[in-house]
Structure formats: C-alpha cells, structure tokens
C-alpha cells in the first residue's frame, strides 16, 4: 500500500514538471488555435544559452534564470512573427489571402514552425556541441520523510511552482482586463476587432508570455537534472503536448490536471511494466483519450482560451 502511495506521490511530483512545460503550449494553442511545433526548441535554445552562460561565463544562477526567460521571450517573438503572425489578416474575411482548404493556414503554420524547430535546435547544438552539458543545479541533496514516504523537496517545489503559475494565470485570465481581451481575441477575432481590441498585438503578447513561461519551466526542470542534452527540445514538446491535450488544449487549469494525471499514470506504468511500459503508457493514454467515444470533439476543437 505504501509503495502504491509512494509511486503516486512520485508521479504527482513529476507531473508538476509536465504541467509547467505544457502551460505555454496550451496558452499558445488557446490563443491562436495553432500548435507551435517550435515550442520545445525555443525552450531548448534558451536552456542551452543558460547552460553556456553557466559553463563558459560562470554566470550566477539568478543571471541564468533571467537570461533564459529573456531569450525564450525573444525567440518566441521571432517564431511568432515568422510563422504565425501572417496567418491571419486583419479580420478573417475573404479579403485576406485565401488558402484553399479549411485547415490551410493551420497546416502552413505547422510546417513553418517545424522548419523553425529544426533551425533552433541546430543553433542550440552549435552553441554546445556535446551531448551532455552541465546545467546549474538546484537539486536537493536529501529527501524529506513523511512517515514511510519519501518526498524530494526539489521536485515538490517544482510542482508547487507549476500549480502557482497555472492557477495564477487562470485567475488573471478570468479577472483582469487584458486577460479578458486575450480570451475574447481567442474566442472571436472579428468581434474582438469590433470592440476595439488590438488583436494582433494581444496575440503576440500572449505568444511571448507563453514562451517566457517555457523558459521558466525549462530552468525549473533542468536545475533538478543539472544537465541538458539535445533531446530536451523533443521532450518538452512531447510531454507538454500530452499534458496540455489531456487537460483540453486551451484550458489553463486543465494543463495542471493533465500534467499530474500524466505523471501518475507514467509512474504506475513504470512500476508495473518497466521503462518501456512507462513510455508506451504515456502515448497509449493520449491515444485513448483522443479517440475514445467520450471525446467531445466539438467542444475541444472550439478551441479558444479558457481559464
């Protein structure tokens, strides 16, 4: 019984990382109804910049954090301008450049964000060509004990941070004027124009904020591992995508539950089926959630940004 609880706790703590990593992705998708394939690479390049500063310039940790968040934001701005900004004209009416096919523009954004993903990953690897690169470590040296249970305080901190960021962002979206504007612009572009919202600017801001969040998430996760590898980009994208999707793409609170659920399922799958079973379970869970009869495709696809 204790073992089961321990596994669940471990899963929840890992889930915090997943939620944090998925937060930016869900925000982007909710705001733009587009999947940003370059999301993981953005976090990775920011992480590599941080690692470089740490290893080559002996930068202190606070500087690494700031540099990562700033570079993620700047990179995000670049990605948005290049891949997503032009996919909507001012107003979504026939006067805008028509691309055949209902998903035409979404597919184009997908393709160009994929191209930028390749670009950013290679830039990162050029910066630090080795496979294993040291990263500033905030890992805990010991575990807390709670009766018979062991809890790693660093992972707990990440989970708490994830919850704080998620719930904080959700509350801000619900209560603030700008939060309302983000949600309105995501809900109906033309109507948002009509009430005077600067839609393009709002969406650029939301996108940049999402990437800044990815920088924070990257730091939090990597500071526990104390190293970063070229696989990080793909890891961020995949875990973030699963967490966001489980909670409903575009739902901010949903990312938290999705991440936690993913963590718990993975932890138990590992116990029962080993490392490969764990990996399999991640994707099987996603597949089942997506294709099951309970998937209310209409509601989920209506997209938009929901707190």
């Amino acid at each position, binding site marked *: 019984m204790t073992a089961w609880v321990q596994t669940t706790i471990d899963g929840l703590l890992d889930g915090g990382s997943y939620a944090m990593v998925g937060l930016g992705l869900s925000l982007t998708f909710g705001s733009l109804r587009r999947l940003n394939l370059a999301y993981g690479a953005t976090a990775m390049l920011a992480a590599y910049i941080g690692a470089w500063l740490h290893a080559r310039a002996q930068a202190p940790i606070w500087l690494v954090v700031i540099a990562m968040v700033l570079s993620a934001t700047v990179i995000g701005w670049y990605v948005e301008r290049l891949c997503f900004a032009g996919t909507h004209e001012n107003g979504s009416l026939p006067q805008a450049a028509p691309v055949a096919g209902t998903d035409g523009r979404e597919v184009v954004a997908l393709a160009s964000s994929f191209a930028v993903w390749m670009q950013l990953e290679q830039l990162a690897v*050029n910066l630090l060509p080795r496979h294993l690169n040291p990263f500033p470590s905030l890992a805990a040296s010991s575990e807390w004990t709670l009766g018979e249970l062991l809890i790693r305080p660093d992972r707990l901190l990440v989970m708490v941070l994830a919850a704080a960021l998620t719930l904080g962002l959700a509350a801000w979206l619900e209560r603030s004027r700008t939060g309302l504007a983000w949600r309105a612009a995501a809900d109906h572009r033309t109507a948002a124009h009509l009430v005077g919202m600067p839609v393009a600017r709002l969406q650029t801001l939301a996108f940049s904020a999402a990437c800044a969040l990815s920088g924070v998430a990257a730091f939090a996760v990597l500071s526990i591992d104390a190293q970063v590898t070229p696989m990080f980009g793909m890891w961020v994208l995949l875990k973030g995508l699963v967490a966001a999707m489980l909670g409903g793409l575009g739902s901010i609170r949903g990312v938290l539950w999705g991440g936690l659920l993913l963590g718990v399922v993975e932890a138990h799958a590992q116990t029962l089926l080993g490392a490969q079973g764990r990996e399999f379970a991640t994707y099987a869970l996603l597949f089942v959630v997506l294709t099951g009869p309970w998937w209310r495709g209409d509601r989920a696809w209506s997209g938009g940004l929901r707190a």
Partner: protein
Amino acid sequence: MSDRIHSASAAASGVNGTLAQAMRDALCHLPGVGSAAGVHAVGLASDMAIMSLLALSAYLMLLVGRVSFGQQAFFGLGAYASGVMSAMFHAPLGLALAAGAAFGALCSWLIALPTLRLSGLHYAVATLAFGEMARVGLSAWHWQIPGEDGPVGPAGIDGFRDIRWLLENNVAPIEYLVLTLLVLLFVLGLLMQTERLRLGVGLRMIGQDDTLAAAQGIAVERVRLFAAAISGGLAALGGGLYAHRTTYIEPAVFDPMLGVHAVGYALLGGLGTAFGPLLGVALDLGLLDASRLLPGWRMVIFGGLVALFLRWRPRGLLDEALVHRLASHWRHLRSGRRTPSVSLPATRRTP
C-alpha cells in the same frame, strides 16, 4: 573515410538526423561501386527515392485534409515485416516487400478507423501518439530464430540486424537503385493516373471541404479510409526498401522527427502534384549533401528559408495553382495555339 563521413555528418545533422545518420551508416555498409563519389551518388539517390515514398504517403493524407505525424510508424512496421519475411522466412525480395506493404496498409487502415473522425490538429496528435506507441512496441519486441551466423530477428531496442537478402543474392547498389526507382516510378504513375479519375478528384475535394464533397455524393469516410490504407502501404513499402538497403534497422530511427520531415517535404514541395513531395525530398537531401561545406548551419539556413517561403506560397512550390497554369500552357503548346483570349469571330466586318 567512412569514419570521417560519420563524424562530420553527425556534427552537421545534429539531433535531427537520426535517419540521415542511419543512411550515412548504410552508405558505408554496402560494397562500393567503383569510386567513392559513385558510391555516394548511388546511395544518395536511393535514399531520396526511399524518402520520397514516405513523403508521398504523407502527401496522400494531406490531400484528404489530414496532417499525419505517424507515417514513420508504418515505415518502421513495413521495414520490420519485410525484414522478417526475407531474413527469417527466406522469402524473395518481391514477396517480402509486398508483404510489408500489405501489413502497413492493414495497420494504417485499422488506426484510421478510430482516428479519422478527429479534426485536423487532434488527428495529428493522435497519429503522433500512435507513432510513438509503435516505436516503443518495436523496442520491446524480441523474436529471434537461429540463423547461419547466430540468432536472427528483432532484438528489441538493439534493432534487427542482418537483413542481408541483397548481399546474399549479389545485388549491387546500382541494381538496387534501379529497382527502387522503378518502384517509385510505378507508384508515381499510379498516383498521377488516379488524379485523372473521379477518385483523384474526390480525394482533393475531400481535402478542400468535406461537407461540400459529401453533398456531391462522395462517400467521404470510405474514401478517406482508403487513402489512409494506401498511404500506410506506401510508407511500409518504403520501409521495406530501406530495411534491405541498410541491412540493419532499429526502432530509434522511426521517431516523430522522421514523420514530421515527411510531412514537411510534402508541404514544401507542393500539394498540387505527386512530384511535389519528391521535390521537397530533393531539396532537403540534396541540400544536406551540398552543404557538407557548411556543417552545422544547414538547418539554420534551410529552416529559416522554408519558413519565409511558406508565407509566400502556403501550398508549397508545386501548388495547385501552378500545376493548373503549367497544365494549361502545356495544352496550348501541344495544340499549337497561344493562350487564347476572348475575341469576337474574325469574320465579322462592318459593312
């Protein structure tokens, strides 16, 4: 020489070259054809033909309006299936390839049943999930039977070695290249022919607007399922060709990066014609080759160019508009007239 190729390309392609790296390994496994440059050219051409099949399978799904990030799974399943047939059951190459293709088609059809009703993005993620499930499944699959030089068969994460049908039957790389090209040509012919039939038009209609297509009497779901099956078969066929070319396959090669690349080639090359994906493959692999001068910057430049380019031509290079224009120019050239303009009958004269 092979070491230098390995390390240079490993540095150049970095993380996004798992398949490229494997292809480079393959270049060094097969016996040479005279000069090193000859080996290289033959190898590159074979790689491009094989990748084209995978890109065509992604293209077919794009035609019916679905972005699939899971085609690499059928590529891998086809590779393993045909490898099993030829290396473990000693089937001739043709049968092995056909069996692999059939298996891929079946798997694709089965997966399509629950997933095709999902909207674009959710479908893409579902296929991505399936792709990873297949890869992890293959990593856990052990099945070995005794062979001449030891056990033969899939060894989980260590892959499947000794798919040596080509070596055992003394097929030179250039002969294999010709075979691969013939297969590709055959597939292209089939696809181009389909475009002229009602089926081809129907496929494109479904991709543009499936509600409208249904209103025209097209059985949208069935045609989509059919397209999914064919695309799975194409990918698996490419996988079978790949397995025999490299003689060694491992699950790590069949990762999402491969599938996303396939979609990228189709989108970049253009969705107007089956030659589009080939163009995309040629551009990327050709550039990979040419830019050995600039190791480490290929993707930085190429990626940026692609993203810029897509803003200007969202349907790729050979998009439907261009294909239409080229086709009408071709028709007028053949009939000896220039592009006609609206004109009154020449015989009208004012009295």
